């Protein structure tokens, strides 16, 4: 059996890659993909500890996280289409309607 530390290290690595993606990319769609990476890192942790404690609760929480990811993707991509229709761009730099 793989020790749970390995999964925790892997999840920390994936989370950091996701954070770098969210902070550095300009394309809003790629930023949404990086959020999916972050949520997957969280899920790996939940399932690893679910296996370690021989309890199914972690997997149930992972299912709720996946539900959230689906809702977030639907809302985010709907926003993206509305934004592209109004501003003709998917660049995070050019989306500054709320800045003054």
């Amino acid at each position, binding site marked *: *059996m793989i020790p*749970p*530390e*390995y*999964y*925790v290290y*892997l999840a*920390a*690595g*994936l*989370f*950091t*890659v*996701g*954070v770098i993606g969210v*902070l*550095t990319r*300009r*394309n809003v*769609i*790629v930023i949404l*993909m*990086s959020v*999916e*990476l972050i949520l*997957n890192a969280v*899920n790996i942790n939940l*399932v*690893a500890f*679910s*296996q*370690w*404690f*021989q*309890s*199914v*609760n972690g*997997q*149930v929480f*992972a*299912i*709720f996280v*996946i*539900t959230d990811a*689906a*809702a*977030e*993707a*639907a809302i985010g*991509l*709907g*926003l993206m*289409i509305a934004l*592209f*229709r109004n501003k003709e*761009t*998917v*660049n*995070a*730099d050019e989306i500054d309607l709320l800045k003054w």
Partner: protein
Amino acid sequence: MIEQVGFFILAALALVSAILVITRRNAVHSAIWLMVTLASVSGLYLMMHAEFLFAVQVILYVGGIMVLFLFVIMLVNLDVAVQQSRFERHWALAIAASVLVAAEFGFALYQGYHGHGLALAPSGSAPLTEGNTQAVGTALYQTYMLPVEIASILLLVAMVGAVIMAKKNVE
């Protein structure tokens, strides 16, 4: 032994493809590498005996969410974005913040590993004898019935919200 080899292959695949997701210029390539990451994570679920989550990951993420992403990438034109710089102006500041996050993770993991170590499984919990899907289903519909209902309302709200935001304004 073979389990360890499988774990390291899947973990390396997940990490390398995750790095490729955030560095590719073309968003379609990013989406395809994200599929590789999600598929390797689903392989990890299989190794952790979470067979139901493996199926959910493949059907919902690789099959559903990624198709949604590809649709939207095709709807918004890429030609302008491909020629521009991939990274935003303040990327150095962003990298510094990410290094800070990574350092915090490293510190917390180091402290956790050398300080306490992981607690063993509580003595009361019996190992799972029934099938994984059966166990997850029982937990979902007995212990977590109210959260399941809340999640279904969340999905309904997300669906209505996505339709309202994406539709054209009709006066």
